[in-house]
């Protein structure tokens, strides 16, 4: 039966992401208008089912769905709730202070999410894929092949042009490579980073953060929190690292609790999963979670560099980048899904033109970049481009001011006294700092400053004051069933690996060895071990009594944190084989 010719499509989508699936959806809509234009699409997804490797907040502006999926309500897109009340809260170690909505609206309007959709993105992506499977049946001029369980593992070039991706591992290129005239990368950097590097497209290095998230079933008698949204600053991330928590009330008395922590932290031991447990020990959350049951756990990294980290080009010959591959998350407004879908929507228009003209050159595809940069969804993204700079140039904001404010919240129930105290300590300096931060954060439209991020995390000196970490520790009373250690948490990520997993490369054992010794000498944990979200990295004692790096890959949730925090850049997380990995459906 099997042909010996190449496996070839007009368009290959790498990753069943919101961006790529909306690209396919929009292409299908366009193709209806011209039945004579025939073309084929292949959708590769590393998870065994579409959506299984998707983990996100997510509170999304409905306008993007109205635009790209105008019938989404009639088509039963899964919507958990529509936000009816959003809070921006300062978390002390004892108390929580909800910023009065008047102040939030004036000073941090991005945190006002009323009217937005609260989504379980894994389910939405699964819905998007199913929609596509149904709708393509009515468009005979388009062929879409779905490949869940098939990950692209390598970019294939011919004469500096992307011509496809390597997928299978039979050893025979003819059977292993999926060729395409246009390859669309909607991945989280697994492969797109290689193209960005090869063509030297990086402007600023991408800053990544890690998000850890749990879904809980609340007790029957508890208050229904459906539609409520909290974004919190403060406890438990008090070590000067940029981070925050989110709590979303879902339907059927379910609750999402998560924490996003930036990986460019000076703290080499972030312990994301552990910090999430600390978060839940807060008295307010303890009350909310009384009698609740953990349903799911998961983790993923988020590109936080924002506008300043966008690559020089959004396309090369034969390929374009979308969504997370570009880094379209606006960390200030906590929104990325809208821009990801918009990127798919706009890419579809350009891809359609490219198919019609049979021209997939960079010159033709560059319309995509122009269109995306002009999109109204990008206005806010651009406006918020100094968010990271504001914290980057003034580390005191998080390291010194925040703890003082929190102390005030704990003692007086509000941050006012702490703020006044800060102001009185050094009025001129503090006023200047406040004005500067306010300008960068909220009034940056007219600013024309350069943004430069520190390059990579290579060779970070593990010199970090442990006292800062100690402040996270909480010895308060807490219900034991609200807190899970990392070994147990993995169970709730439903990881499954069929084959002997081999998806994380460790390039040099010696590098690991010296890294371990460097950190041991400072009495710190090795970052890959401490920051792993799923009990993968560990230290083993070798035969000659030396500590060596080991991995339990069968636990891996494929968040890629280890690769990003490895101070020696000695690890690479590859997409796994055969649909293995976590199952985040419902998270």
């Amino acid at each position, binding site marked *: 039966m099997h042909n010996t010719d190449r496996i070839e499509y007009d368009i290959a989508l790498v990753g069943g992401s919101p961006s790529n699936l909306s690209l396919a959806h929009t292409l299908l809509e366009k193709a209806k208008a011209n039945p004579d234009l025939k073309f084929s699409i292949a959708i590769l997804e590393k998870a065994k089912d579409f959506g299984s490797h998707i983990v996100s907040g997510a509170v999304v502006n409905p306008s993007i769905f109205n635009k790209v999926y105008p019938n989404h309500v009639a088509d039963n897109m899964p919507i958990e709730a529509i936000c009816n009340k959003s809070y921006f809260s300062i978390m002390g170690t004892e108390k929580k202070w909800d910023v009065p909505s008047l102040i939030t609206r004036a000073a941090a309007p991005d945190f006002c999410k009323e009217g937005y959709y609260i989504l379980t993105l894994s389910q939405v992506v699964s819905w998007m894929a199913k929609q596509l499977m149904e709708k393509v049946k009515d468009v005979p001029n388009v062929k879409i092949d779905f*490949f869940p369980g098939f990950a692209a593992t390598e970019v294939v070039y011919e004469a500096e042009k992307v011509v496809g991706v390597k997928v299978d591992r039979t050893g025979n290129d003819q059977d292993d490579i999926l060729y395409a005239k246009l390859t669309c990368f909607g991945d989280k950097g697994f492969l797109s980073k290689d193209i960005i590097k090869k063509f030297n497209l990086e402007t600023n290095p991408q800053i990544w953060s890690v998000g850890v998230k749990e879904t809980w079933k609340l007790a029957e008698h508890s208050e229904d929190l459906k539609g409520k949204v909290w974004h919190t600053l403060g406890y438990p991330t008090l070590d000067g690292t940029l981070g925050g928590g989110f709590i979303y009330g879902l339907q059927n008395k379910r609750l999402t609790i998560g924490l996003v922590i930036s990986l460019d932290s000076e703290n080499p031991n972030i312990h994301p999963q552990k910090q999430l447990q600390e978060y839940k020990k807060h008295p307010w959350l303890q009350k909310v979670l009384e009698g609740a049951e953990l349903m799911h756990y998961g983790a993923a990294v988020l590109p936080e560099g924002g506008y300043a980290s966008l690559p020089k080009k959004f396309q090369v010959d034969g390929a374009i980048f979308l969504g997370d591959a570009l880094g379209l998350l606006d960390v200030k407004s906590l929104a990325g899904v809208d821009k990801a879908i918009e990127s798919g929507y706009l890419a579809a228009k350009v891809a359609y033109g490219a198919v019609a003209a049979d021209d997939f050159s960079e010159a033709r595809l560059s319309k995509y970049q122009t269109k995306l940069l002009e999109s109204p969804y990008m206005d806010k993204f651009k406006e918020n481009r100094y968010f990271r700079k504001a914290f980057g140039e003034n580390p005191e904001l998080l390291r010194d001011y925040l703890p003082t404010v929190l102390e005030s919240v704990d003692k007086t129930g509000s941050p006012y006294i702490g703020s006044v105290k800060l102001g009185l300590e050094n009025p001129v300096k503090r006023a200047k700092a406040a004005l500067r931060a306010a300008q960068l954060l909220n009034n940056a439209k007219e600013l024309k400053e350069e943004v430069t991020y520190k390059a990579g995390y290579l060779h970070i000196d593990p010199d970090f004051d442990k006292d800062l970490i100690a402040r996270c520790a909480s010895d308060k009373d807490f219900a034991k069933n609200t807190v899970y250690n990392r070994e147990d948490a993995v169970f709730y990520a439903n990881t499954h690996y069929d084959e002997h997993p081999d998806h994380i490369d460790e390039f040099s054992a010696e590098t690991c060895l010296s890294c371990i010794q460097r950190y041991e000498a400072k009495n710190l944990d090795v970052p890959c071990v401490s920051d792993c979200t799923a009990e993968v990295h560990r230290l083993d004692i070798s035969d000659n009594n030396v500590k060596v790096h080991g991995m339990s890959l069968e636990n891996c949730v494929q968040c890629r944190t280890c690769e990003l925090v490895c101070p020696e850049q000695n690890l690479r997380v590859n997409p796994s084989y055969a649909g293995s990995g976590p199952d985040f459906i419902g998270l």
Partner: protein
Amino acid sequence: MNNKDLDIYVLIKQVPDTRSKAGVNPDGTIDRAKAGKMLNPFDAYALQAALNAKKMGGPNSKVTAVTMGPPPAIDILYQALEHGADNTLMLSDRRLAASDTLATSYALCQTLEYAFKQNGRPGDLIFCGLQTTDGDTAQVGPEISERLDFTQITYCEDFSISDNEVHAKKIIEGGTQLVKAQLPSLITIANSYQKLKFKTLRGAQFVQDIKRSSKEEQAKFVEIIDLDACHAEELRCGLAGSPTIVSKTWKIGVVGGNCKMHQGKSVPDLVGEVVQGLPILEEFVKI
């Protein structure tokens, strides 16, 4: 290897999903309609063996997956194609309902004979799983080899093919045995053989292609026949052809009802919790 081209057949069956709860009909047979479906896990090893055997034969060797079952069983044939089978054949007929192993092996034998005839020559190798998860008899494979007069290797863990011979390692009580047999041969594959690899990219593409194609095109790769097509006698099939009588089937009650999860604590604490109230274990832990 300079082997001749091999015609390889693999017998597979769709069974109730082992993870779902199957009902029992009043007559004691399994209510298959209610349960989820899956490829018999034992047959997955046989399919991998067939695909491996193809590589040992000449360049025009081919694998045909054969099944007998109700129409939804077509899913496992598509699955076989995704994994790299070249062709599939299904015997589907209401008159086959409630067949025991004797009737099943008869019907499958007729189906294989039909395939041999269509192909213009008898097969070289037939692979079967050890047994099915819904019948657990392990009889059908050996019965077919007797009917077809093929040499027979059971409980095979590993094998190679050279010239006209199979060299196989099979499990026997207390050890393993190395045997050789002349082709044509029927081999039942033990579940200590290689696990079925993930489907291939080309196979997954191919199946999506044929599912979109016309009925005629589909029939080229997924052929469905009934008892008349393979000249099977009705009286030797189904309930009529089955001397086995299932006198009674009953539920053995809920298995594993009171499972308590212990988690979220240190190992010593967890052990303490588990052994609490179990004197035998408490004694053991103290030691």
